[in-house]
Every structure is written in structure tokens, then in C-alpha cells.
């Protein structure tokens, strides 16, 4: 396999596999937060901001995978 082809493949695999975990995690966060909001609507403002923050943290592993893919594609 040529180096260029290996780079493109590696970048695709890195993002593809790295996005699985955060996808599941964000789904769980959003689902639980909606459950809690529907059970107790008065809390929804507080829950919504906390949900966004924790989603952004859960998302960060996907972002790392994306960064690795960029580094593979453009910086090496």
C-alpha cells in the first residue's frame, strides 16, 4: 500500500471509530436529561445548561479523533 493511501484510510478509520463512543454517550446524556425534564419541568433550565456542558465534554473524545485524523492528513 502506498503511503498516501494508508494516510487517507487511517484518517477515515480514526474518525469513524472515535465517533462511536461519544455518539452513544451523548445519546444517553440527552435521553436521561429529557427524562428528568419531563418528570420535573421546573428544573429544566438548570438541567439544560448542565446537559450542554456534559455533552461538550463527552464530545471531546470525538474531537480528539478528528484532530488525530487532521494531523495524519495534513501535518505528517
Amino acid at each position, binding site marked *: 500500500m502506498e503511503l498516501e493511501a494508508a494516510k487517507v484510510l487511517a484518517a477515515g478509520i480514526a474518525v469513524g471509530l472515535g465517533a462511536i463512543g461519544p455518539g452513544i454517550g451523548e445519546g444517553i446524556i440527552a435521553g436521561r436529561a429529557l427524562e428528568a425534564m419531563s418528570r420535573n419541568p421546573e428544573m429544566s433550565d438548570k438541567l439544560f445548561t448542565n446537559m450542554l*456542558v456534559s455533552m*461538550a465534554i463527552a464530545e*471531546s473524545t470525538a474531537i480528539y479523533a478528528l484532530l488525530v485524523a*487532521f*494531523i495524519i492528513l*495534513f*501535518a505528517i
Partner: protein
Amino acid sequence: MENISISPDVVFFILGFIPITSSHIALFFITMALTLISVYFYLTASLVPTGLQVVLEGVYEWFMEKASAAFPDQKRAERALALIMTFFLVIIFANLFGLLPIINSIVVHLSSGQAVSLFHTPTSHLSMTLAFTLITLTITHVTALMIKPLKYIGNFFKIGGILKARSFGGFAKAILEFLLGLLDIVGEIAKLISLSCRLFGNVLAGELMVVVIMSLTVATQFIFPMPFIILGIVSGIIQAIVFSLLSLNYISLAMASVEE
């Protein structure tokens, strides 16, 4: 925007060896804008808030609520809030800088014949986010060390348990605690990477997504990037909030660990 690169473009050099990049220039203009806004706010602030004052006071109160929940001491919360609000305002201006219409397409031709853009979203370069993270972590460690230096260092090197152990089981437990304390040092280094790369990666990904969609075909240059631009705005605001709240939590947790 056409060529995708991770390292910033160097526009000129100060004294011949300090490189000034396009993101430096953009950040300088953001700082000027924030200074002007704060001077305007200081001069026109009134007891009955109107316009800009309502927005800024809303942001202040939201962060004040978070800070007074994180710190037991109100005075300390106000001191930390100065830093946190500055982070938030600079990052939110920097994240949304890429939306300005004409400014981002200004190109300068260097003496070497190379054409580089004069302005660039500051947070899509790792140097700025890394600098902000270093400020946060320095303040975290210095404030905790200033309160109780020995106790804070003892949180990482837990030698006390090993010296006090009387039985074999207690000794093994103390060794395990010591090793876990050493792992906290790795955790501190991981904070540096995670906090800076999260902001950098999100903003870079938001920008590159638009570039990739626009460069697909001629038909996708006009309406198709819009949902991705909106996604970029939302993630830019959220990442600014996340960065400031996480720095607040790091500072307050380090203080709480020495004062418990």
C-alpha cells in the same frame, strides 16, 4: 480559507525574530473591541439597564451564580469571576470572529510573494487555546500552593500513609494510594491537553466542515453550508461556556482539596 493548514500564517516579524501570525492580529483587534465595549459600558452604565447592559449583566449574573456555588467564600468567588468572565468574553468573540463578512477575506501579499490572509479565527490555532489553558492551570496550582503548600504537594505524593502503616495490609493499601496519587500528576497533564484540544478541535472542525461542504461542487457553495454555519455558532458559544466553567471548577476543586 482555500488551503487547509493547522499551523498559522506568519504575516510579519517584530525585531526580525518574533513571528506575528494572522491569529495574533485578529486577537489584538478582539482585545481592542472588548476594551472599547467595557469603556462604553463603564461610561453609560445606569441604574435602570438598557440594551447592551442587560445582556452583560445577565451574563455576569449567570456566571456569578455558578461561581458562588463553586466557592464557599463570596469574596473569592468574585475574584475568580474576573478571570472566568474574561475567558468567556474573549473566547466567545474569538469563536464568532469567523462570521464577520468582509474582514476574513482580506489578503496581504508578503515580500516573498506569498499571499496570506490578514485575519484568522484565533481559537482555531492551538497556540491560543494552549496559552489560555496554561493560564488556568498556573492559577490553579499557584493559588492552592499559596494556601497550604505542603498539603497540596501531599495530595500528589501520599507518603504519609506509608510511614504510618502498622500492618502488612495497611502498608499495601498505602502503597496503592501513593501510586494513585502519582496518577493524579498524569491527570494534571491530561487536563492541559484535553482543555486546550477541546476548544481548538471544535472551532477548527466547525470551520473545516464549511470549507469541505463548499468545495464539494459548485451547487453546494450557497445554501448548503448554512446549517453547518449555524452548528458552528452554537458549538462556539457552548465551547466558550464549557471552557470557562471547567476552568472555574479546576480552580475551586484545587482550593477545596487543601481546605477540607
